[in-house]
């Protein structure tokens, strides 16, 4: 009787322990997937900022797609109960997403620098163009005005032919 009771107790303990382990494991997977999802979103946001700064982000978008593929595999594996696959795919996604984040930040800062230089050049050239245009026109005007006056003085006065008596 004692042996039977001890066996049942052991079985119960093993079952309880397994359930606790399973639950912890599932929680871990959920939290890892969530972490990978956040890392991917953060990486995308930084890539978007780099793109807005004028950087060519084609290479980074290709990497984002690779990471996104791993995260999708992880989500589907999790939904199908394949926790091991979910964990390994999530880890692959996290590694790529973290790499993208660093690359995107570097690309963004270099694109911002380039954009600042370009903006300065544009403003300088615009200002110089406007000044050259105004000065050039003023010089033409200075030469044109005496020419116009000379031409006006050379003109013969016309007698009005339709004047009434």
């Amino acid at each position, binding site marked *: 009787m004692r042996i039977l009771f001890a066996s049942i107790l052991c079985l119960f303990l093993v079952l309880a322990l397994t359930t606790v382990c399973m639950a912890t494991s599932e929680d871990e997977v959920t939290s890892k997937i969530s972490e990978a999802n956040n890392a991917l979103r953060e990486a995308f946001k930084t890539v978007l900022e780099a793109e807005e700064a004028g950087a060519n982000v084609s290479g980074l978008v290709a990497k984002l797609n690779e990471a996104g*593929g791993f995260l999708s595999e992880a989500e589907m594996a999790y939904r199908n109960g394949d926790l091991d696959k979910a964990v390994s795919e999530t880890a692959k996604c996290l590694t790529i997403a973290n790499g993208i984040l660093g690359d995107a930040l570097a690309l963004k800062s270099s694109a911002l620098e380039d954009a600042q230089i370009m903006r300065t050049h544009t403003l300088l050239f615009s200002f110089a163009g406007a000044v050259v245009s105004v000065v050039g026109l003023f010089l033409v005007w200075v030469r044109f005005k005496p020419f116009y006056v000379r031409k006006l003085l050379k003109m013969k006065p016309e007698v009005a032919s339709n004047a009434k008596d």
Partner: protein
Amino acid sequence: MLRIEDYKAIFAAVGLIGVLLSASPSLGLVLHLPSGEKFSELWILGPSRMAEGYPFNVKAEEGYLVYVGVGNHMGSSVFYVVYVKFRNQDEPLPNVTARTPSPLEPLYEYRIFLENGKSWEAPLTFSFSDVSFFENRSLVGIIKINDVTFHVDKLASWNVNGTGYYYQLFIELWIYNVEVEITQFHNRFVGIWLNMTVSL
């Protein structure tokens, strides 16, 4: 002959045009012209990558192929999620008026990052197994999408009007909203009807 005041006005106008032309690159930095309409495309093509030859009469243990595509015209790079869902004719589709997705659990999914003006297309293969028919009903036990197995246990009643057991494989387009930092239903979905038939 024009008067000196007229020439003055012409010179002033030419000067103003010259200044505006010279300043136009700088004005471009400040003034932003309105961009065109922003939208996304979502499509399903048949096995020949044309809008024809879609699988319709399907049976167990046979593979089928369609192509899923997304196009980005949103003005910048976008993070899309494409969910593949499977339903019988009684289960709800997304509600385009209320802008809500179908409450059904997604089976397969694609996460896609697309630059503006680019499109993406991928094959979607599917097959059914564990299919049974009884009392004017059909039961699909398993659907395999791109070699991933999903246990669905989906029942369909005999459709008297269409004379078949109708299921629908449909895809929903979701988009990641950077401002609120959530993935939202993008109010676009497409699907194909499937009539489950008996394997001979």
